[in-house]
């Protein structure tokens, strides 16, 4: 990368920091309104109890648990994307890692709130600490999610230190007193000395290695929450790897969508090119095919044995009351997106974004198909349970989904959207060496 491209990169990475134009405030207002409406719905639920939701005696897990699994899975994909790119030393990672890490934290913050919402009486959350049962998967979840959250924050913060120092040094008087203090404190006196570089590289390296097994453990524990019960469709030995793959798939798809949105909003087209989307699409295809394989393996073994409970659930999925949702997920939410990104041709970015949107929606449906039929299937000789979400659940779901982009745009108003330090690390100390074409120009934009 020549000096001019490097300068342009830095300028673009810092462009949105401290800026608040009409588009920014407009977006903030729209997303903020949705979040506030979600909060209003939650307060409404808090006052009246869970009876205002569609949850009932037979189907006591619904949108809230679906969203918890979905958003934490999304977070996992973001963390994994960044960690894998760092550990494999992918040279094209610099513009993506920050966005992936920030997406991971934002999605995790939203997902981790859902168990509290589902409690109805959030004060009872304290019971987990007062009377913990180590044999309960709920306690395992608490430990796993809190550990993963801590690690995600550290994993976001450590690589951010040099860029915070950059903001500290370049913003000057424009930063204002509060922001300048924030930068000064968070930068920890970074000046880019070799010893600082060494210390930081070591810390980031440990976190990049650690975040992968942590993320795997979080989603495995979430899967065990289902798998250790004897409900139809849940009691499966393959559930943990299936959940991990599902999380990675939806997470990478979410990262693609966030990268595309920020690329357009912050004018990063020069640095985030079709090549990045193509590489992320390859990741999407690999994960998608892996997921198809695991899903077939699960349904084949369960369906072949056709045990009394899982047989009824499978029947409801393939030909019964959930068949429409299931086949919508399988065809539109899984197979079509994979074909869309696998086929060579024009418009790789548009195809990657369309496929990602379909996968994100499809993986939400898949979580619905795991949670609700498993609950609705009666263990006792009763009728099947029914579940129809109310406006409260819908409002909280929409509000929480809006909270993720809201958190991201607020975060990127304070910090660079692309990692400058990482680019310098990849490019080496001499950024002014003659290069005929920009390193990120390959692949052709659309």
């Amino acid at each position, binding site marked *: 990368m020549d000096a001019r491209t490097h300068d342009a990169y830095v300028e673009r990475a810092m462009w949105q920091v401290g800026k608040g134009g009409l588009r920014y405030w407009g977006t903030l207002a729209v997303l903020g309104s949705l979040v506030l409406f979600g909060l209003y719905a939650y307060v409404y639920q808090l006052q009246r109890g869970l009876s205002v939701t569609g949850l009932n005696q037979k189907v006591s897990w619904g949108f809230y648990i679906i969203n918890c699994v979905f958003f934490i899975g999304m977070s996992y994909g973001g963390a994994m994307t960044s960690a894998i790119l760092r550990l494999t030393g992918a040279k094209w990672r610099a513009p993506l890692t920050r966005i992936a890490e920030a997406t991971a934290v934002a999605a995790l913050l939203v997902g981790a709130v859902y168990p509290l919402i589902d409690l109805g009486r959030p004060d009872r959350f304290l019971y987990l600490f007062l009377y913990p049962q180590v044999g309960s998967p709920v306690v395992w979840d608490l430990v796993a999610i809190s*550990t993963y959250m*801590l*690690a995600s924050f550290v994993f976001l913060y450590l690589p951010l230190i040099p860029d915070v120092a950059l903001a500290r040094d370049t913003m000057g008087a424009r930063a204002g007193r509060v922001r300048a203090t924030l930068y000064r404190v968070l930068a920890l*006196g970074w000046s880019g000395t070799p*010893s*600082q570089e*060494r*210390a930081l590289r070591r*810390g980031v390296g440990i976190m990049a290695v*650690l975040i992968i097994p942590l993320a795997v453990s979080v989603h495995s524990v979430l899967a065990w929450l289902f798998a250790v019960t004897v409900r139809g469709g849940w009691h499966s030995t393959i559930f943990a790897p299936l959940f991990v793959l599902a999380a990675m798939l939806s997470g990478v798809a979410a990262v693609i969508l966030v990268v595309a949105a920020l690329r357009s909003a912050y004018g990063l087209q020069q640095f985030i090119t079709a090549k990045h989307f193509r590489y992320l699409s390859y990741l999407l295809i690999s994960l998608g095919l892996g997921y198809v394989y695991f899903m077939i393996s699960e349904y084949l073994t369960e369906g072949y044995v056709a045990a009394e409970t899982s047989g009824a659930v499978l029947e409801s999925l393939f030909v019964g009351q959930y068949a429409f949702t299931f086949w919508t997920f399988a065809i539109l939410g899984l197979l079509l997106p994979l074909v869309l990104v696998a086929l060579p041709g024009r418009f790789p970015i548009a195809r990657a974004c369309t496929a990602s949107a379909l996968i994100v929606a499809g993986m939400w449906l898949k979580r619905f198909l795991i949670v609700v039929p498993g609950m609705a299937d009666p263990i006792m000789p009763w009728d099947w349970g029914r579940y129809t979400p109310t406006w409260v659940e819908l409002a909280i779901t929409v509000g929480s989904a809006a909270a993720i982009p809201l958190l991201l745009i607020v975060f990127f108003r304070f910090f660079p959207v692309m990692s400058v330090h990482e680019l310098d690390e990849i490019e080496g100390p001499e950024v002014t060496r003659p290069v005929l074409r920009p390193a990120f120009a390959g692949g052709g934009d659309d």
Partner: protein
Amino acid sequence: MTRRFPLILATAALAMLLLAGPASADHLRAVVSVSATAEARAEIGYVLTAQVRRSDGRAIGDTRVRFYDLVDFYGPREMFIGAATTDAGGRASLTYLPARTGPREIVALFPGADHLAPVRATMTLDATVAAPPYHAEASGLALFSTRVPYVVGVLVLAVWALIAYAFIGAARGVMAGARTGKGGIT
């Protein structure tokens, strides 16, 4: 008139009988008593017997009697022991082995039949024998299972320590480098 007097008397007596008959039946009620005797083999427990009869002394046969033990389970409530059918003598019996020794409040309930209202009787049984405490067979994995939480706990602590090491080490290294130009983690 004198000749008709016995006929009038007989008619009046019949009318009184007809009128008094149903009226006295309505005043009948069920009476229940309950008793307990120890079984010949003490470990079997106690035989609870309920005697059900009308207030006029006639036994009520072929009717179900329900037996309860008053227990304290999140407040006082009746724990259903079982039901038995009365014989021709109005007796219904079943065997009961309490879960705990000590005084038990036993209830026999006649749920009502043949215009007779439900009636209940209670007695105190001072149980000296009780069922042995439930004992689950230890599975082969029990020893393994009891140690898993400790192993996992150590693992979790190790992960937290590693996160702390990465964070604090890097932060200290950066801050030390800012002051002296030397790193913390090496």
